[in-house]
């Protein structure tokens, strides 16, 4: 084989999980010194590709070449460094101590390791020198991110591939600039920097090359100058028409929302930390309102802030995305279903529980929401993830609040349960109630939601009626374009 000028080559790479093919025959060639962006819709295979490069997952067939030598990242982790999305550092230690942790050698493992020249050099390179003696909790987020990068550089000084997974989702635009500058520096030292980002505008600015992953394959590669934001948005949304969505049959069930009456209307919602900045939001009876935005856009804070601003659970009820918060893990299915209901539903005047009444009610709920269990008196943890999520949503629904506030109602849920959950929510709003749900997946918005607000940088940047779109591709284009929000 002739020597090529590529640092990393991926040849005919395939990976499947059981019956599903995650990656099919992927071929990529990457030169050193470049910043490479990877984009792809949820489920396209982007995450799998990144995990294989980082060595978190093994591949089935194909090969990876680094400097013309075959290598398997899952066996040889020293060549690839990952900077994770959420910073994994110790806030109560100084920046210097954070860098020193884990560097103890066998000679001085009983003493606190000393700062070495390497550490000083790397800190200097990333502009961290003046922060070395400050506790991390007193530093800004960008310093924390840079510390994470420095730590990666120190512990992985053989690495030639650097993966950045949404590194700036919590940073302001000036801070992001700083981060990108250090990424360029790393690339210029003969390495490859791979950047995964939802913010397409940034990719246009910083990436030398962009790879598009769709349906398990790398479909296109663009080099600098060949792409702009519009090109990338198109690439991201093409695949949607192929998705197995039961199309307009569902959309027809959606209620024509009457805009005259509002159940709820908040103007100029703000938070002290400026994550939300003057948001107007309202919802009508019978309406399912979607909130869409990328991580760090403020959309998660928005749903939580709405919950906190209405402190009356007769009026609104909130269900977080994490099941550790929405369910009582030590309790039975039965108890989880009724734990949020009123005292007089649960107990007689004398305080004793109405066990038979509750059990009848639970039996009804289990049937109504098709929760698959042999016995509702089993622990909640005996259920599958999808059925646990149905219980969580049912426990909020039985409260009969006017507004249901949901956060990613189908995260980590199988397709069958997803359909059940959409059905649950749709029949709930038929009774004159409303539902506000935060979604990260466009198919969910298309299938479930009547109207959608798009959030970017803590502001509402779009308000669309889903019925106005003829197909999911159109919707996806609009949402992706608006939410990728060009930074000033």
């Amino acid at each position, binding site marked *: 084989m002739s020597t090529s000028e590529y640092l990393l080559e991926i040849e005919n790479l395939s990976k499947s999980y059981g019956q599903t093919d995650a990656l099919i025959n992927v071929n990529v060639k990457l030169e050193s010194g470049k910043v490479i962006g990877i984009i792809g819709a949820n489920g396209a295979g982007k995450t799998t590709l990144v995990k294989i490069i980082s060595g978190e997952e093994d591949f089935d067939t194909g090969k990876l070449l680094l400097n013309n030598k075959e290598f398997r990242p899952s066996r040889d982790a020293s060549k690839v460094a990952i900077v994770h999305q959420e910073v994994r550092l110790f806030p109560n230690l100084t920046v210097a101590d954070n860098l020193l942790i884990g560097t103890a050698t066998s000679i001085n493992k009983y003493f606190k390791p000393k700062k070495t020249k390497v550490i000083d050099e790397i800190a200097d390179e990333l502009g961290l020198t003046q922060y070395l003696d400050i506790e991390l909790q007193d530093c800004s987020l960008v310093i924390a991110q840079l510390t994470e990068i420095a730590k990666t550089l120190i512990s992985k000084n053989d690495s030639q591939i650097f993966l950045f997974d949404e590194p700036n989702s919590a940073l302001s635009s000036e801070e992001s600039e700083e981060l990108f500058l250090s990424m360029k520096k790393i690339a210029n030292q003969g390495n490859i920097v791979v950047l995964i980002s939802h913010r397409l505008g940034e990719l246009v600015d910083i990436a030398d090359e962009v790879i598009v992953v769709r349906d398990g394959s790398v479909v296109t590669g663009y080099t600098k100058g060949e792409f702009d934001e519009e090109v990338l948005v198109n690439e991201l949304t093409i695949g949607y028409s192929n998705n197995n969505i039961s199309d307009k049959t569902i959309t027809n069930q959606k209620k024509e929302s009457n805009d005259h009456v509002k159940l709820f209307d908040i103007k100029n919602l703000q938070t002290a930390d400026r994550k939300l900045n003057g948001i107007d939001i309202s919802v009508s009876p019978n309406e399912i309102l979607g909130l869409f935005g990328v991580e760090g856009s403020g959309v998660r804070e928005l749903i939580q802030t709405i919950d906190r601003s209405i402190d009356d659970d007769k009026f609104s009820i909130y269900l977080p995305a994490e099941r550790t918060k929405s369910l*009582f*893990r*030590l*309790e039975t299915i039965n108890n989880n279903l009724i734990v949020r209901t009123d005292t007089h539903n649960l*107990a007689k005047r004398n*305080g004793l529980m109405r066990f038979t009444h509750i059990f009848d009610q639970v039996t009804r709920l289990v049937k109504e929401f098709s929760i698959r269990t042999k016995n509702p008196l089993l622990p909640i943890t005996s259920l599958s993830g999808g059925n646990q999520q149905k219980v969580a949503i049912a426990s909020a629904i039985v409260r009969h609040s006017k507004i249901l506030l949901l956060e990613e109602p189908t995260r980590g849920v199988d397709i069958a349960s997803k359909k059940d959950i959409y059905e649950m929510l749709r029949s709930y709003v038929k009774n004159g109630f409303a539902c506000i749900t935060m979604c990260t997946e466009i198919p969910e918005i298309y299938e479930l939601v009547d109207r959608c607000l798009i959030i970017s940088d803590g502001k509402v940047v779009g308000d669309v009626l889903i019925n106005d779109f003829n197909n999911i591709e159109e919707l996806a284009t609009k949402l992706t374009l608006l939410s990728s929000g060009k930074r000033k």
Partner: protein
Amino acid sequence: MKDIFRNFKIPSFLLKDSRIAGLVVAILFSIIIFTFINPNFLSLRNGLALIRAMSSVGIMSLGLALTILIGDLDLSIGAVYGATSMLMGILWLNGTHFIYALIFGLLFAVLVGAINATLTAVVGLPSFVVTLGTLNLVNGFTLLLSNARGINPRYHVPPPPISELELFRFLGATKFFGMIPIQIVWLTIISIIFWLLIHKGIFGFRLLAIGGSPEAAEIAKLPITKYKYYAFILSALLAGIAGILDFSYLGATDPSAGLAMLFPCFAAVIVGGAALTGGKGTVMGTLIGALLLAILSNGLSVIGVGAFAKLMFVGAATIGAVALDKITDRKKSL
């Protein structure tokens, strides 16, 4: 012989709760060993004395269990036990009617519980710190109030009215049918009330939910603060009741009475299967835990190993029970 085994049915509550089943086995095992060493152990008289002796630990453990079920703990119960009886005794011997002195003593216990709850649930301090503080605060107060001297109403000058003295002695020192100590009756009544509260009532339903998943409880807007008040106030109140019953039984009390009760109470609750992280535990387990500790303590006395070795034994038994639980739990999950 085979038929006996075939027809023998294990009660269902033992099968459901492996911890209680283990405790029952341990209890039977200790009874057999102690009886073997000293046949006097297995007499009705010793049995009743043993249950009498565990009753105050039993009562206090039930209160303590509430704070542990909700995910906190209460270290001040021993101090409250001493303070309540001392405060009641001093008020009474200084001319207050016995009933008023009794009510005042119990109100003091409620006050300590309310302070614990306020600092824990409203201010948001860890209950360990709060109750460690009130433990010393209350004990110091008792020492100050009593000049560090014990009291004995019968030999007090001037003596309290005979009728009140009889009422006082009735509370803890009565024997029904000449053999059943009234403290066993109190323990039974309180246990039934607690069993109804925790296992049949909405109180226990919410208490366990809050203790098991505090985050979910907050999201579900359960009345967390209110329930912490209930738990801490009942815990202190039961400690006060136990203190007064023991005062009445013994006829005398001293300011540091009760400090030594703290460990046995925790041991009973933990051996009984409650999780210190909250949300898990039963009335039955707590009582059987207290019973096992009483049997060990009484049995070791009967065979005459001495008080210090007894302490060591109880300490080891507590750790052993929890360790055994952890190991079997791990086996189960494998």
